C-alpha cells in the first residue's frame, strides 16, 4: 500500500473539491464521514476513490447530525477525522460542533457555501459566515479559515488538521461553490517534505490500561448541575481561545495603514478586491485592502489599525452583512466610516468594486 498520495511537488489543474480530498490525505486524515450535499459532494467522491488505496476509511451517514457526531466519535477514538457540508447541512452540523466546542474536540469541517436562506441555490454564496463562526448554542470557540484559491484550499486544509489537533478547537475550512467546482492550477506537495510537521492525533478514550486499576477512567461530559460550573467551563474556554487568538489569526493587507479607502473582503471576493485595488492604485488612487484569512478569530489588532487610519472601510461580501457584523464588532469605536457593498448569493467582480471605490471618492 502506498503510504503517501503526493511525493515531491507537482503542478495540478483540478477542482477545489478534488484539492480538498488530496489535502486531507496529505494531512494524514484517517476517516471521513459525510452526507451528500451540493456543492461539496465531490470531496466525498474523490475521497472514496482514493481512501482505500491508503488504508483510509469513509462512512456515508444518514444526515449531517450523524456526519458531525460520527466525526466527533472518530476524534474521540484518536483518529484524524473530518466531514464536509454546505447550507442546510451546515445548519445541522452546528449541533455536533457545539459538542466539539464544549469538549475541545479537534474535528475538521469543510464548508462549501451555497446560497441561503433555506435550500436556496447550490451555486455559491458567502452566507454561512455567521453560522460557521458563531453558530450553535455556544460562544463561537472555533477556528475558521476562509480560503480564496485552490492553492489555499490545499494549504489550509492541511493546516486545519494541524490547528485542530494542536489547539483542540473545532476547525473549519470555509470555501464556497465557486472554489468547490472551478478548476484552477495549484502546486500540491508532501507537507513533511516542506518542513511542515503533522501534529499527531491522540485518543481521548480507549487508552492503554484498565481504567480504575492502571489509570483513572477518561470521562467527558457536557452537562453541568449549577451555574457556577458552566460559568467556569466557559471562562476556561474563553481564556484558552483568547490566548491562542493572536497566534492563530491570519490576514493579508495592502496599504491598509495609509489609504483613504480600505476595502475589506474575505474568500473569493477578496480576489476581485485585490485586482480592483491594484488597478486603482496604479491610477494613483488612495485605496488599500484588508482580507481576514481567519474569520474566527479575527486579526483584530491589525483590523483596528486600518479602521482607525482609513476614512472609509468598504465592506464587500456575497452576503447581506455577515462579514460586516464581524468587522463592525471588532472595529467598534474606530474612526472609519463603514460602507456596505453586499450582494447576497451573487459573485462580485473587480469592476464593480472599482466603481464603488471611485464613487466613494467622488
Amino acid at each position, binding site marked *: 500500500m502506498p503510504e503517501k498520495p503526493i511525493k515531491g511537488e507537482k503542478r495540478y489543474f483540478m477542482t477545489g473539491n478534488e484539492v480538498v480530498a488530496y489535502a486531507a490525505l496529505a494531512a494524514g486524515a*484517517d*476517516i471521513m*464521514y459525510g452526507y451528500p450535499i451540493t456543492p461539496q459532494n465531490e470531496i466525498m467522491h474523490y475521497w472514496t476513490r482514493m481512501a482505500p488505496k491508503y488504508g483510509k*476509511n469513509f*462512512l456515508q*451517514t*444518514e*444526515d449531517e*447530525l*450523524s456526519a458531525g*457526531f*460520527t*466525526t*466527533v*466519535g*472518530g*476524534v*474521540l*477514538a*484518536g*483518529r484524524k*477525522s473530518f466531514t464536509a457540508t454546505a447550507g442546510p447541512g451546515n445548519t445541522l452540523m452546528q*449541533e*455536533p460542533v457545539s*459538542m466539539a466546542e464544549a469538549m475541545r474536540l479537534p474535528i475538521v469541517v469543510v464548508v462549501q457555501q451555497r446560497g441561503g436562506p433555506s435550500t436556496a441555490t447550490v451555486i455559491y454564496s458567502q452566507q454561512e459566515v455567521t453560522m460557521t463562526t458563531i453558530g450553535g448554542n455556544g460562544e463561537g470557540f472555533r477556528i475558521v479559515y476562509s480560503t480564496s484559491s485552490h492553492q489555499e484550499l490545499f494549504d489550509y486544509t492541511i493546516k486545519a488538521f494541524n490547528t485542530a489537533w494542536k489547539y483542540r478547537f473545532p476547525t473549519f475550512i470555509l470555501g464556497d461553490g465557486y472554489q468547490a467546482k472551478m478548476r484552477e492550477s495549484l502546486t500540491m506537495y508532501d507537507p513533511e517534505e516542506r518542513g511542515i510537521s503533522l501534529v499527531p492525533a491522540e*485518543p*481521548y*478514550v*480507549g*487508552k*492503554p*490500561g*484498565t*481504567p*480504575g*486499576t*492502571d489509570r483513572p*477512567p*477518561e*470521562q*467527558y*461530559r*457536557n*452537562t453541568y448541575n449549577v451555574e457556577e460550573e458552566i460559568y467556569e467551563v466557559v471562562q476556561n474556554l474563553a481564556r484558552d481561545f483568547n490566548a491562542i487568538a493572536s497566534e492563530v489569526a491570519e490576514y493579508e493587507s495592502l496599504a491598509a495603514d495609509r489609504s483613504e479607502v480600505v476595502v475589506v473582503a474575505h474568500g473569493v471576493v477578496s480576489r476581485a478586491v485585490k485586482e480592483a485595488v491594484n488597478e486603482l492604485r496604479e491610477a494613483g488612487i488612495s485605496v488599500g485592502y484588508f482580507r481576514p484569512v481567519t474569520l474566527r478569530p479575527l486579526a483584530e489588532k491589525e483590523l483596528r489599525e486600518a479602521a482607525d487610519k482609513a476614512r472609509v472601510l468598504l465592506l464587500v461580501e456575497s452576503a447581506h452583512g455577515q462579514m460586516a457584523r464581524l468587522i463592525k464588532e471588532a472595529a467598534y469605536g474606530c474612526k472609519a466610516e463603514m460602507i456596505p457593498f453586499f450582494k447576497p448569493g451573487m459573485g462580485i467582480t473587480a469592476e464593480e468594486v472599482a466603481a464603488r471605490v471611485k464613487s466613494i471618492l467622488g
Partner: protein
Amino acid sequence: MSVQLAMPKSWRIDTKPHKFCPGCGHGLVLKALGQAIDELGIQDRAVYGCDIGCSLLSWDFFNVDSIQTHHGRTTPVITGLKRANPDLVGIAYMGDGGGYAIGSQHLVNAAARNENITVILVNNTQYGMTGGQMAPTTMPGQKTETSPYGRDPQKTGYPTQGPEMVAAITREGAYVARGTVANPKQLKGFIKKALENQIAGNGFSFVEVLSTCPTNWRTNAEETWKFVEKEMTKYFKVGEIKVPEPRHEEGK
C-alpha cells in the same frame, strides 16, 4: 428486605451511591451492564456513551472510558468511534425518547447498516429527565404531562415496538432482545450476548429494557413493580427476537 449484592467490579465506587431517583430502573440496567463487562473482561476496551435524558447521570458511573453525548446522538458518536477504532467495544446507552424519537433516524440507519456496536435502550414509557412527557413508548390510555387525559392512539399512535422494528431491518448476525429490570439475571444474559455479538464482529446488537420511573409515574414500590411487570408487558414482549433469515440478494 432486599439484599445488597456486591457492586460490579467495573463500577466506579467513588461515584456511588448513584444519582438516579430511589426505585429508578436505570441503576438495575447499569448493574446488569457492569456484570456483563466484568464477565467478559472488557473494562480496558469498552467505551461507554450515554445520552441526554436520565442516562446522562451515568457519565462517571463506571471505571470505563465514557462520553456523555447529546440527546439522541449517542448512536452516531459510538458508531464513529467504532468505525475509527474497531478494537474498542462501543456501548451506546439511551432512553426511549433519545432512541425512538429524536435519534430514531440514527437507530434505524445504524441497524440497517449493521453497525458493529451495542445499543442499550431504556424504555420507561415517558421522558424522565424533562418531567414525564409522552414518549413514543407511552401506552394507550397512559397519562403523562403531555397526554394528561391518557394517550389516544387515534391521535398520537401506538407505542413504538423498538426491538421488533430493529429486528426487521437488521441483517443476519445482528442480535436483538427485550429485557426487563424485573428479571435482572435474564437481562444480564441479554446484554452479555449483545456485547459478545459485537466482539465477534457479527454486527448490530440491540437490547431494549423495560424499566421503572416511579418519580414520573408517581407510583409507590408496589405499584411500580406492578406497572413494569403487568402493564408494560401487555404491549412489550420480553425475550430475544429472531432477526430475519438471510435475505434474497438483489437480482436473484
